[in-house]
C-alpha cells in the first residue's frame, strides 16, 4: 500500500501524539496540600478510575483513531498493483500515448462517449515533467503520430488530442504498435531512457485479440487504460445491408439486412430500407447474435441507385452503426442464347424444360425471342451470340472447333455458360472447352462417358453444398425439395486434382458429379450433369427456383464490387460500360461533395479495358457515385466496419498473460481485482466521522 500524499501520514501521527504531548507539556504543577482525609481521596480516585478508566481509554482510542483516520483519508492510500507509468517516476523517459480512434470509441456509456474519457485519460499522460519526452499516436486504420518523434511540446500534443474524434473505421492494432515501436526504439547504445507505452482504448475483442506487443522494445513499460465499463454496453447494429438485383427478375431486388444484437436478451428490431423512392420495412425479434432479415422490393428505375437501411426506434450505445448504406444496380432482364439441336416445338424435351425454367413468366404463345433465342450449334458465331447475356447449351451435339473456341473466348471475357450435359458427346465438348480455355478453366472433376453397359438411371443426390447457391435458396426445406428427385443420363466423372473441390456443388449416389460451377477468368461455367428429359427434376417444384438461382449466380459473377469499409484502401474496377477514366467524376455522399477537390475521393485510372478507382484511405461513410456527364455509371457504398459494432472488450488478463509478449504490462482495470485503487479514503473519512460521533456518544453516556 502506498499513499498519494505521504506527508499526511506523518502529519496524522504527529496530530495523534499531539494531545499526549500537549498534556505533558501543559500539565499544571500540583499544589502541595497536607490533608487529613487522604484515605477518602484515595478511595474516591479508586472508585472514579474504575468507572472513568474505561471511558478515558475509549475516548483516547476513538480520538486517536479519528485523527489517524482523517490523516489516512487525506493521505489517499492506494493498494493493488502499482501502475508502470505514472508521474511519480522521475528521470529520463520517452513516452508514447496510443489513442484508439476506431468507431467503437464513439460508443456511449452513461451518456459519455468513450472517446471523451479517452481524451481525459490520455491528457493525464501528456503533462510536462522534467526529463520526459512524449508523442501521441492517433490509431485508426492508418495510425498517425503527431510528431515524427518524441517531443517536449506537450501543449501541441494536448491540442491535437483535443481535436481527436472517433473515426468510422477500425483500428489496425499491429500497425499502430509498430508506429509506437519506432518511437520507443533506443536511439543509440547509450539510450537508457525509460520507455513507456500508454494505450488508451476500449480494447475491443475483435480488434485487439491478435495484438502483438512483442514488436515493442523489450524494456518497454506498457500500461493499458481501458475507457469502458466491465460489461459491454448494449448495442444493436446493422452489420450488413445488401441489395441483390436478381438478374432474372429485372427491377425486383432482394434486400438482405444482417442485424447484430449485442445485448444479453432478444430485441425487437425494425429496419427501414429505402432504395431510391421505394421503401421497405422489416421487422423481427432478434436473439443475441446476428439475424438476417430479407425481403424483395420492386424498383421503378434501372441503373445504379443508392440505398440505406436504418434501425428505427433504437437507443443504444453506438449510433453510427444504426444505419448502413448500400447500392444496387438494376439491369434489364438478361437475354439467353439456348444452343441446342432440339427443335423448339419438340415437346417434351430437355431444351423445352430449360426454356420454361429460364423464362418462367412467359405466357404460352408469347414470343420469347426478346429474352431467349435458340441457336443451332452449326450457326455459332460471335454476332449470333452477341445479344445474349448468358449462353445455355443443351443437347448441342458435337461442337465445331470454331464453336468451342468462340465459347471459350466468350467465357473468359465474362460471358457465363450453363451446360446441361445429357449426352455422351458432351464429355468431348467439355474436354475441348476446357482445353480451349488454356488453363483458365479448371473444373473440380473431369467428365467422361460412362462405362459400357452402365445405365445411369435412378440417381439421387447424395451430397449437396446446402450453404451455397443455388441450393441455399431452399434453406431448411432443401431435404424436402431434393428427396424425391431422381436423375438419369449424364456422364461419369472423376476427380480433377487441379480443380477446386469447392466448385463441386452436388454429387450423385454413385459418386459422379451432379452440378459443377467453375470460374474462368471473368466468366463462369456451370455444368448440370443429367438428361432433364429423362429425369423428374423438371416436374418437381424445385426446378424453376434451382435454375433461377443458378443463372443468377452465374450472371452475378459479373457484378462489380459495390461496397467497402472506411479506412481501408479502396481498389474498385469499374464496369466496362463505364468507359475510360477520362471524363469520369466521383461524387461523395455529402451535399457539398458534388464538386470536390481533385483526388479528394481518390483517383481514377485506366487499367486494361476498364477504369480503376483507387482511394488509399476512405474516411467518410456513405454512397459515392462515379458519374459521366452527370449520369451515374458506378456506385460504391462505404460503411463502418461491422466488427466495430460488437463492443465486448478483452479481459485484462488476456493482455497481461497472453499478449504481452514478455513485456511488463499493467492493465488499469475499471474495477477489477489487482487494480490499483485509491477510493478507500472515503471509507476512512466515514469511519473518522463515526469515531467522532462515538466519542460524543461515549461522553454523553458517561456523563456524571
Amino acid at each position, binding site marked *: 500500500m502506498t499513499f498519494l500524499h505521504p506527508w499526511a501520514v506523518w502529519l496524522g501521527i504527529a496530530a495523534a501524539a499531539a494531545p499526549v504531548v500537549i498534556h505533558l507539556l501543559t*500539565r*499544571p*504543577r*500540583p*499544589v*502541595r*496540600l*497536607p*490533608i*487529613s*482525609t*487522604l*484515605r*477518602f*481521596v*484515595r*478511595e*474516591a*480516585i479508586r*472508585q*472514579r478510575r474504575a468507572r*472513568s478508566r474505561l471511558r478515558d481509554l475509549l475516548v483516547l482510542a476513538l480520538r486517536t483513531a479519528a485523527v489517524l483516520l482523517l490523516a489516512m483519508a487525506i493521505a489517499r492510500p492506494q493498494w493493488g498493483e502499482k501502475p508502470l507509468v505514472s508521474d511519480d517516476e522521475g528521470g529520463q523517459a520517452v513516452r508514447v500515448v496510443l489513442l484508439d480512434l476506431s468507431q467503437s470509441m464513439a460508443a456511449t456509456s452513461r451518456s459519455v462517449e468513450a472517446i471523451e474519457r479517452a481524451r481525459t485519460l490520455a491528457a493525464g499522460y501528456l503533462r510536462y515533467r522534467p526529463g520526459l519526452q512524449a508523442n501521441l499516436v492517433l490509431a485508426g486504420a492508418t495510425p498517425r503520430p503527431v510528431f515524427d518523434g518524441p517531443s517536449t511540446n506537450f501543449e501541441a500534443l494536448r491540442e491535437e488530442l483535443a481535436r481527436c474524434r472517433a473515426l468510422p473505421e477500425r483500428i489496425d492494432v499491429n500497425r499502430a504498435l509498430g508506429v509506437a515501436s519506432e518511437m520507443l526504439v533506443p536511439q543509440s547504445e547509450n539510450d537508457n531512457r525509460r520507455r513507456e507505452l500508454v494505450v488508451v482504448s476500449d480494447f475491443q475483442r475483435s480488434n485487439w485479440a491478435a495484438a502483438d506487443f512483442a514488436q515493442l522494445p523489450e524494456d518497454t513499460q506498457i500500461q493499458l487504460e481501458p475507457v469502458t465499463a466491465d460489461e459491454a454496453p448494449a448495442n444493436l447494429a446493422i452489420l450488413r445491408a445488401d441489395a441483390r438485383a436478381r438478374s432474372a427478375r429485372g427491377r425486383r431486388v432482394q434486400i438482405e439486412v444482417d442485424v447484430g444484437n449485442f445485448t444479453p436478451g432478444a430485441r425487437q428490431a425494425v429496419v427501414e430500407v429505402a432504395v431510391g423512392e421505394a421503401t421497405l420495412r422489416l421487422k423481427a425479434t432478434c436473439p443475441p447474435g446476428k439475424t438476417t432479415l430479407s425481403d424483395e422490393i420492386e424498383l421503378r428505375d434501372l441503373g445504379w441507385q443508392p440505398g440505406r437501411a436504418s434501425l428505427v426506434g433504437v437507443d443504444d450505445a453506438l449510433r453510427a452503426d444504426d444505419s448502413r448504406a448500400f447500392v444496387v444496380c438494376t439491369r434489364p432482364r438478361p437475354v439467353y442464347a439456348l444452343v441446342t439441336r432440339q427443335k423448339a416445338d419438340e415437346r417434351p424435351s430437355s431444351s423445352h424444360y430449360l426454356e420454361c425454367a429460364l423464362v418462367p413468366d412467359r405466357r404460352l404463345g408469347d414470343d420469347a425471342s426478346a429474352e431467349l433465342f435458340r441457336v443451332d450449334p452449326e450457326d455459332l458465331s460471335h454476332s449470333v451470340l452477341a445479344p445474349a447475356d448468358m449462353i445455355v447449351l443443351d443437347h448441342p451435339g458435337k461442337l465445331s472447333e470454331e464453336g468451342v473456341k468462340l465459347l471459350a473466348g466468350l467465357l473468359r471475357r465474362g460471358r457465363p455458360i450453363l451446360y446441361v450435359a445429357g449426352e455422351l458427346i458432351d464429355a468431348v465438348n467439355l474436354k475441348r472447352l476446357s482445353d480451349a480455355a488454356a488453363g483458365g478453366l479448371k473444373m473440380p472433376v473431369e467428365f467422361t462417358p460412362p462405362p459400357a453397359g452402365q445405365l445411369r438411371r435412378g440417381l439421387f443426390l447424395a451430397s449437396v453444398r446446402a450453404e451455397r447457391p443455388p441450393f441455399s435458396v431452399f434453406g431448411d426445406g432443401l431435404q424436402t425439395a431434393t428427396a424425391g428427385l431422381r436423375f438419369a443420363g449424364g456422364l461419369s466423372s472423376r476427380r480433377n486434382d487441379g480443380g477446386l473441390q469447392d466448385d463441386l456443388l452436388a454429387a450423385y449416389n454413385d459418386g459422379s458429379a451432379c452440378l459443377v460451377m467453375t470460374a474462368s477468368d471473368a466468366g463462369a461455367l456451370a455444368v448440370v450433369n443429367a438428361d432433364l428429359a429423362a429425369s423428374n427434376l423438371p416436374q418437381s417444384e424445385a426446378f424453376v427456383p434451382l435454375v433461377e438461382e443458378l443463372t443468377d449466380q452465374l450472371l452475378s459473377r459479373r457484378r462489380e464490387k459495390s461496397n467497402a469499409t472506411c479506412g481501408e484502401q479502396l481498389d474498385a474496377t469499374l464496369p466496362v460500360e463505364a468507359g475510360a477514366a477520362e471524363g469520369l467524376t466521383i461524387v461523395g455522399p455529402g451535399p457539398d461533395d458534388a464538386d470536390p477537390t481533385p483526388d479528394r475521393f481518390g483517383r481514377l485510372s485506366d487499367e486494361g479495358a476498364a477504369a480503376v478507382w483507387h482511394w488509399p484511405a476512405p474516411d467518410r461513410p456513405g454512397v459515392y457515385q462515379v458519374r459521366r456527364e452527370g449520369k451515374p455509371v458506378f456506385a460504391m457504398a462505404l460503411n463502418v466496419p461491422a466488427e466495430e459494432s460488437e463492443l465486448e472488450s478483452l479481459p485484462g488478463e488476456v493482455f497481461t498473460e497472453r499478449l504481452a509478449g514478455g513485456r511488463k504490462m499493467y492493465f488499469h482495470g475499471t474495477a477489477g481485482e489487482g487494480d490499483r485503487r485509491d477510493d478507500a479514503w472515503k471509507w476512512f473519512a466515514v469511519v473518522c466521522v463515526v469515531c467522532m460521533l462515538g466519542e460524543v456518544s461515549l461522553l454523553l453516556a458517561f456523563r*456524571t
Partner: protein
Amino acid sequence: MSTAVQSRFLDMRALVALEHMRFTTRHRIEGAYSGRHQSRQQGGAGEFVDFREYYGSDDLRRLDWKVLGRTGKAFVRLHQDETNLVCTLALDATGSMLFGSGGRRSTRGSKLEYVQYLATALSHVISRGQDQVGLAVLDGGLREMLPPGGTPMHVTRLQEIIENLDTRPATRIAGGLRDLFERSRRRGVLLLLSDFLVDDLDEVFAAVRLFRHGNWEVIVLHVIHPDEERLPEGTAYRFEGLEDEGRVDCSPAEIRSRYRQLFESHTAMVRQYALADGCDYRRVSTAIPYLRVLHGFLVERTG
C-alpha cells in the same frame, strides 16, 4: 477559683459569659465528694424525694417513725444524695488533628488548636463547678493520662498538658481508650474529642462500649474542619497525608463529588455508632467559635 499561671488557651474574659453556666449530667453519677450532681446513692442526707415501704433489710435509721405512729405502717424516707462529677477529657492527638494549620509547624488554625481551646474551657467550667476533671491524650496508645482531680494545681497541670499538646502520626486510638478504661477507677463522664479519622473506627466504638457498660456517660464531640468537608478549588493538587500515608496527585474537580459523599458517609457512620452505643453525639465544626459551641453544649445539657 483561679489558676496561678493561665494557659494561653484560657481566655478568661471570653469565659465571663459562661460564668453562670455549669456542666451537668443527665445521669446519676458516683462521686467521691459531696456535690451538686445527683448521686447513685439514695441515703438520708440528701434532699427528700419519696416514701417507700420498709423492708427488713433497710436501715432502721431511715424508718419514718412519725408515719408509723400515725398510720401504723412502716415506711422509709428516701433522700437523693448529691455528689461531685468526675469527668475525663479524652483528646485525640493523632496527626489528622493537625489539619487546618496549612502545613505550618505550629498548630494555629488546626483542629488540635480548636480542641485545645475547647478542652481548656471545659476543664475550666468543670473545675469551677467543684467537679473533678481528668485528661487522657490518645494517639497510637494512651500517651498521657491525668487522673481526675479538682484542685487548682491539678487543673493548672491539666491545662498545661493541653497547652503543650502536639500530634503524632498515628491512625489508631482504640488502644489508648482501652488503656484509659482499665486505668480509670471511678466511673464518671468521658468527653471524647476526636475527628475520628482513624483506621480502627470499629475498635474505637468497641472501647467506647466498655465505658458504656461500666455506666459511664460518654459524650462524643466530633471535630470537623470545614476544609475537610469539601476539596479545594483548583486544577491540580498533591495531597499529602498527615499520618505518614504518602501522597496523591489528582485533580480535585474529578473526585469532588465522590469525596464529599465519602466524607458525609464517614460522618454519618460515626454519629450512628455513637448514638447506637448510647453516647451523646455532637458534631463540632471548627468554623464555629468554640465559645458558641461550648455555650450551646452547656445549655443543651442543662435542659
